[in-house]
């Protein structure tokens, strides 16, 4: 019987009711008395020297209240990178300043160099256009292509960085010689060059920020579309604006998706705060979608050469990769961690392979900043591995299922120290592989292929097995690896006098359903109804602290902090019960929402204990404090390691090259499951994005650095017709060994495992259809690329 409440139940989401009735409160929905409107003046060239900013054009225009330029922020700090990476030679990465508004030079199309504040949005927009028209920007040659950026030293994104290189990173440098030797002496080496296509995250809610300043107290308030309000507060306060942290409240209300793009602090947030102070009025800014395309941090954009050394039977001996990773014009907050520690550390996948070496050169270009997008580095690692393995199988005439099966780590090998620095705590990769084969009816493929052939379609099947490190992360480990922040989380459980609860959590929900799931966990543990638990998130004034939601960390890290705070509540409740029941504290047990004296029928309900905590008429105050509220911070001992196996089946139209994904099967191990309905939804969403990357999404700049795919007319978002129903299973469960909930995280899985499964299926279809010369097609495998490959 499935549970109907608490842990493991598919409780319906409480947040849905407001979203379904139009009562959500997203940032742009807010209406604040006296509000004014900011519009940014953005560069129309990719690279240029700012000769003059035409601010005078806006003077006297109707409604204009203030104009800001880069000059106004020249004295304040820059938006920093959150992770210091050292190059192979030990030198630290190059870190150019990222100003609030561009100063001296503009470095990508959309780079804001001025901002106008006006009484209405239209007035601000008109004035911004007038300033843009009156500004003089001397266009410089754009640095767009990564290989050329590194080769052509005379053309620099940042004048002080001669080779446009941020760093040249080796992982693990000590492995390098050994890996080179292993590859040299291996019986077989498969080489593949591939592109992990640049993506625009495209959360459906565009970014928006509202700044307020309260002159009476000197307090600031920033309402913003953030996955990570405390980090934004820290960055704005300590690094960019110099506002005392205790004078800045950051609120991230309902947020319409993030996928990474809303982790980071952006210049508009500082601008609206500075403008609010100057005008002593609220200042609001909302991106148009075209601004989102130009300025939200993009994802992926790796060019990789991977080599796989093996014996003739397909036993892996070594992996070696060389990657150029684009960081765009400036370093976004996680941009240096994404292609390194979220990528190189995963380059042994779920496999036993003794020798792995990863080299990543990170390159500045005159394009939008690139940072973590759903999966962040791990999809890139998985894609490289799973594609080269399929290519090896083809070269050696081996079965891709069997090759993976014999190279996967076996359950007796855990905990497993990988050659690239991670300690996998637990897993059973054979189980998910077996499960997905059963789900996909692999044995019946030939029949389905014949049916497709009868319709004139080529059918193929693609497999990928994947692992990720998420639930980021242990602070002591990430500190060693260069992180400038800790990656713990926090929660406060406040039991109110009438027995209901307010639980303040540092994780932020922007679609994940925390308000429901976290309440399920509280209800389960305390034996109270879910409806009596309110989850509070997204407000630095109400929540102790938090590091936000990304990297599939909410439950594994913040959920554990909450669990620990609940332990403290129970411990305090036992003290109170011992007093009320006149028993020894050690004799009190807690279960089913009751504190009882062991071996007797004497008991107090949770509600009675709560009430007593706030009406402590006869408390022994020297040993028992009134009140029932506890806070816990939790820093995990390790990452978590979800893993799984995916099978995709496609049909390819030989005449047009169009690919249809006709079946998609996922067998995942997420450890314990808190709400199956929500877990399934997370996998669906991730797979949908992965199919989008594999089949249609493509971000392209021309040689002048103009974004050619800057709207939904040019950037192909997956639509309902582009994807199938997904077949999802999470019954293979090896619970995480180091958090009490046994959870691993499920948010990124689908986006990690699916792209290689799709591309492997397409190549399989073409091979089976006689196009044996086609061994690789770069994503997106669009009709024109497939057709061209077939007919090459």
């Amino acid at each position, binding site marked *: 019987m499935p549970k109907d409440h608490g842990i493991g139940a598919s409780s*319906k*989401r409480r*947040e*849905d*009711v*407001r*979203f*379904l*009735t*139009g*009562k*959500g*409160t*997203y940032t*742009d*929905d807010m*209406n604040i008395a006296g509000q004014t409107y900011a519009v940014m003046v953005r560069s129309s060239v990719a690279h240029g020297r700012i000769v003059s900013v035409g601010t005078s054009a806006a003077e006297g225009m109707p409604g204009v209240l203030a104009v800001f330029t880069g000059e106004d922020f020249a004295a304040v700090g820059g938006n920093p990178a959150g992770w210091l990476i050292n190059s192979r030679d030990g030198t630290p990465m190059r870190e150019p300043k990222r100003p609030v508004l561009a100063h001296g030079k503009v470095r990508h199309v959309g780079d804001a160099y001025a901002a106008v504040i006006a009484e209405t949005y*239209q007035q601000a927009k008109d004035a911004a256009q007038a300033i843009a028209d009156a500004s003089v920007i001397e266009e410089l040659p754009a640095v767009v292509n990564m290989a050329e950026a590194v080769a052509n030293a005379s053309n620099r994104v940042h004048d002080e960085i001669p080779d446009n290189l941020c760093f040249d990173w080796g992982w693990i440098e000590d492995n390098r010689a050994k890996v080179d030797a292993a590859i040299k002496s291996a019986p077989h080496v498969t080489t593949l060059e591939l592109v992990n296509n640049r993506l625009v995250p*495209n*959360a*459906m*809610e*565009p970014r928006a920020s509202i700044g307020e300043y309260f002159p009476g107290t000197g307090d600031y308030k920033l309402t913003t579309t953030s996955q990570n309000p405390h980090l934004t507060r820290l960055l704005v306060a300590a690094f960019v604006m110099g506002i005392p942290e205790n004078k800045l409240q950051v609120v991230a209300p*309902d*947020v*319409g*998706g993030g*996928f990474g793009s809303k982790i980071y602090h952006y210049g508009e947030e500082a601008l609206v705060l500075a403008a609010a102070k100057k005008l002593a009025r609220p200042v609001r800014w909302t991106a*148009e*979608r*075209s601004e989102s395309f130009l300025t939200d941090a993009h994802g992926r954009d790796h060019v990789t050469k991977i080599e796989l050394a093996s014996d003739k039977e397909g036993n892996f001996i070594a992996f070696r990769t060389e990657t150029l990773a684009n960081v765009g014009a400036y370093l976004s907050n996680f941009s240096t961690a994404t292609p390194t520690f979220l990528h190189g550390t995963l380059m042994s996948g779920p496999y036993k392979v003794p020798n792995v070496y990863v080299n990543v050169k990170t390159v500045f270009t005159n394009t939008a900043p690139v940072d973590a997008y759903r999966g962040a580095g791990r999809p890139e690692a998985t894609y490289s591995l799973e594609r080269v393995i399929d290519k090896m199988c083809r070269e050696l005439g081996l079965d891709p299922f069997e090759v993976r099966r014999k190279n996967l780590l076996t359950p007796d090998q855990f905990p497993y120290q990988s050659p690239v620095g991670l300690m996998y705590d637990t897993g059973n990769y054979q189980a998910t592989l077996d499960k997905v084969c059963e789900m996909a009816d692999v044995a019946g493929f030939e029949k389905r292929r014949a049916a497709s052939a009868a319709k004139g379609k080529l059918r193929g099947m693609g497999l990928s097995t994947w692992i990720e490190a998420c639930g980021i992360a242990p602070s002591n480990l990430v500190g060693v690896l260069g992180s400038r922040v800790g990656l713990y989380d926090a929660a406060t459980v406040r039991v109110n006098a009438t027995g209901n609860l307010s639980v303040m959590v540092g994780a932020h929900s922007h*679609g*994940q359903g925390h308000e429901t799931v976290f309440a399920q966990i509280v209800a389960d543990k305390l034996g109270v109804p879910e409806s009596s638990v309110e989850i509070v998130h997204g407000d630095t004034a109400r929540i102790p602290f938090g590091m936000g939601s990304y990297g599939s960390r909410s439950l594994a890290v913040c959920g554990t902090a909450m669990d620990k705070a609940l332990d403290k509540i129970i411990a305090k409740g036992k003290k109170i019960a011992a007093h009320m029941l006149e028993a020894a504290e050690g004799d009190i047990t807690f279960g089913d929402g009751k504190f009882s004296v062991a071996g007797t029928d004497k008991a107090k309900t949770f509600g009675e204990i709560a009430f007593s905590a706030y009406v402590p008429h006869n408390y022994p105050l020297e040993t028992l404090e009134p009140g029932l509220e506890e806070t816990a911070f939790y820093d995990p001992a390790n990452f978590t390691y979800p893993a799984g196996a995916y099978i995709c089946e496609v049909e390819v139209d030989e005449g047009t090259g169009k690919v249809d994904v*006709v*079946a*998609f*099967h996922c067998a995942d191990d997420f450890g314990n499951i808190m709400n199956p*309905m*929500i877990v*399934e*939804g997370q996998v*669906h*969403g991730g797979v*949908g*994005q992965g*199919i989008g990357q594999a089949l249609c999404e493509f971000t392209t700049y021309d040689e002048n650095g103009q974004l050619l795919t800057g*709207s*939904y*007319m040019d950037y192909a*978002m*997956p*639509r*309902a*017709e582009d*994807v*199938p*129903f*997904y*077949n999802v299973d999470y019954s293979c469960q090896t619970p995480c060994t180091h958090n009490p909930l046994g959870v691993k995280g499920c948010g990124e899985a*689908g986006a990690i495992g699916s792209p290689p499964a799709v591309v492997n299926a397409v190549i399989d279809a073409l091979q089976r259809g006689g196009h044996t010369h086609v061994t690789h097609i770069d994503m997106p495998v669009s009709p024109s690329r497939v057709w061209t490959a077939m007919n090459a």
Partner: protein
Amino acid sequence: MTKVSMTVNGRAVSAETEGRTLLSAYLREGLRLTGTHVGCDTSQCGACVVHVDGKPVKSCTVFAQDVAGADVRTIEGMANADGSLGVIQQAFQDHHGLQCGFCTPGMVMSAAALLAENPKPTEHEVRHYLEGNICRCTGYHNIVKAVMAASGQDVSALAAE
């Protein structure tokens, strides 16, 4: 500025507009009905879909003055008279057809328009009809399921093929 009047969710309303004021802005800023969302500037995403005289319309693509006098329905007008969720809204909750909720108003309004003209759509018909509504969160699986469930079909066994 011109005063534009129309009926929204059964109520007579009016608000000041410029000639360039879009219906989406009229609803969101003029009437403070912020359930209708704006997700793009090229009429592609569908977050802004409302019904104008019974037909689904992208409200970001219509000037408010051009629909003066019309009968408009928005997501705020989709619940039952007693405030409980309407059939389509309830199906979206039951089948987890939304995550961040940003595309949801447009999805529900499009789904309502579809079911009004095609009370028992197939999976393919649902997917085809929703091609003007983008969702980044759900991978569409549970949206399609919810719409089919709202039409009274048994969706318990739906999966690929």
